């Protein structure tokens, strides 16, 4: 066991690739834990997944347009950001306006985003685009700038949630009452969706669509089974995400296992194990 940790620590010290992967895993935990806790308590994991998938449409459109119209500044990440914001606007409007058909319409947006992304990428001229890197990500390909961007996002999320914590909690617990006390529930709902979209878009780069939504929801869902206050859920979720990312990276490095899927495996395992313990009284 000691050798295992010693090997991994040596690798962290010597290999920049592993160092950046470890740093981005730990730094991204801040965003995953805080935003994920809000997503889980607000019960909008499905909405977060829809946003995550719909940004594939933006990535595809950006790749297609940049190649066809020769727009080198139009990067896949810019397309993902635009698609994330558009999907927040559309999904937010749908969930507020058509509550009774909410799940069907969100499912349609989810599928439309992915289908549009695949079609754009299929017809994009030039060399084939590696879809796998967008869907599953590769934490081992993170650069120093990715770590910095993730840290900036984490700090931004931390500040915004800190400033509006009580209002976000109130809107999540009882939207109607919050509105009666002068809190714009729609504004805070869109703020939450915006934070979710920003998190997913930036984290897709290091984690991929599937891992991003898994890490957004699973550690927070696990933490919420053991704590009775939202800020404690956030702290636990941040810690659990950091542990899953670090342990996943260490084990995958040592045993040559694909890192992203193994981190998801650990997160699902922790969530499954949490059912062995007695949940808070209902």
């Amino acid at each position, binding site marked *: 066991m000691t050798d295992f940790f010693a090997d991994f620590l040596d690798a962290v010290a010597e290999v920049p690739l592993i160092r950046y992967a470890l740093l981005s895993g730990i730094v991204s935990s801040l965003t995953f834990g805080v935003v994920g806790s809000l997503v889980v308590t607000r019960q909008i994991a499905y909405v977060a997944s829809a946003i995550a998938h719909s940004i594939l449409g933006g990535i595809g459109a950006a790749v297609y347009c940049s190649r066809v119209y020769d727009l080198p500044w139009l990067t896949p990440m810019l397309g993902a950001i635009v698609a994330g914001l558009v999907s927040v606007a559309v999904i937010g409007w749908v969930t507020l306006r058509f509550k009774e058909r909410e799940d069907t319409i969100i499912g349609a947006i989810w599928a439309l985003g992915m289908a549009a992304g695949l079609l754009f990428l299929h017809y994009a001229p030039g060399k084939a685009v590696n879809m796998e890197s967008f869907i599953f990500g590769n934490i081992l390909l993170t650069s120093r700038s990715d770590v910095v961007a993730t840290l900036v996002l984490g700090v931004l999320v931390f500040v915004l949630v800190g400033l509006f914590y009580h209002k976000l909690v109130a809107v999540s617990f009882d939207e109607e009452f919050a509105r009666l006390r002068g809190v714009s529930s729609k504004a805070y709902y869109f703020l939450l969706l915006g934070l979710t979209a920003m998190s997913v878009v930036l984290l897709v780069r290091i984690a991929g669509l599937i891992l991003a939504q898994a890490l957004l929801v699973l550690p927070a869902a696990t933490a919420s089974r053991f704590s009775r*206050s939202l800020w404690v859920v956030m702290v636990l979720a941040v810690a659990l995400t950091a542990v899953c990312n670090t342990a996943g990276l260490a084990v995958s490095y040592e045993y040559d296992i694909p890192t992203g899927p193994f981190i998801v495996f650990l997160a699902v395992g922790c969530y499954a194990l949490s059912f062995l313990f007695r949940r808070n009284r209902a």
Partner: protein
Amino acid sequence: MNGGRERGRAGFRGLDAADRTLFTGALNPLEPSPDDRPPIVDCRGVSFSYGRSVVLEDVTFTVPRGESLCVIGPNGGGKSTLAKLLLGLIEPDRGRIAVLGREPREARTGIGYVPQAMRFDPQFPISALDIVLMGRLNHLTVGLFSKRCRERARAALDEVGMSGYARRPFSDLSGGERQRVMVARALACDPEILLLDEPTANIDLSIEAQLIETLAKLRERMTVLMVTHDLDLVSAIGNSVLCVNHRVHRHSLPLSGETIKEIYSGRRRLEHDRRTRHQQGDHSACAHD
């Protein structure tokens, strides 16, 4: 909600067995208020529809200051819609509503609203104090609640007999305790009107007595408007009854058996009957949510 429905249905059959001293009054629509002060609620010719479905039609009534008005009536009759109109959550198609002399939307800060506690996620990670602090949200811009807000929230918890529960998580509270926390949250708003939506739905009978005791104290210092199916609660707290069934009729208390039959069109059994059967071990009429 179903619990409330069940309780409502549990109202009528035991009418003969009910304490007739509680229910001996006459239909008395739109009695003028004996209080000369401006009414705390003034509703004039209000109509409201959801699409083509007319929910309220030409509704006119006033609520004098200090009154404890119980809003009763069959499901679908428009009780909850009336509450939403008073809260300014929806706008009437026709007519005018004044609450505390203002538009309902502008009067919201003066209303302490108590929804049914059972409609919330029981696993939501939040303490009783944090729920009560929501009543002070209009005093918060960003960051944390002030010390004064916290003290007001603790005083509100104390007022409903829950001072020892401030740090207790919502998930650890019983149905009755949760409902009292909701009442404390409304009190933390420093309201002039307490508006309750079926406060005794889904609550054990023993705990209901504590809630009634709390509400009986509160009605002495504020106007209480209460949507309920619970005729025991009506008799304990109310001093006037507004029956809502698309239109409204005001009744004085005590209600007669005939009036109750009239209100519920013979479709409901008396809550008393459900209680009697419950105490005798027959739970077939109890709510199962």
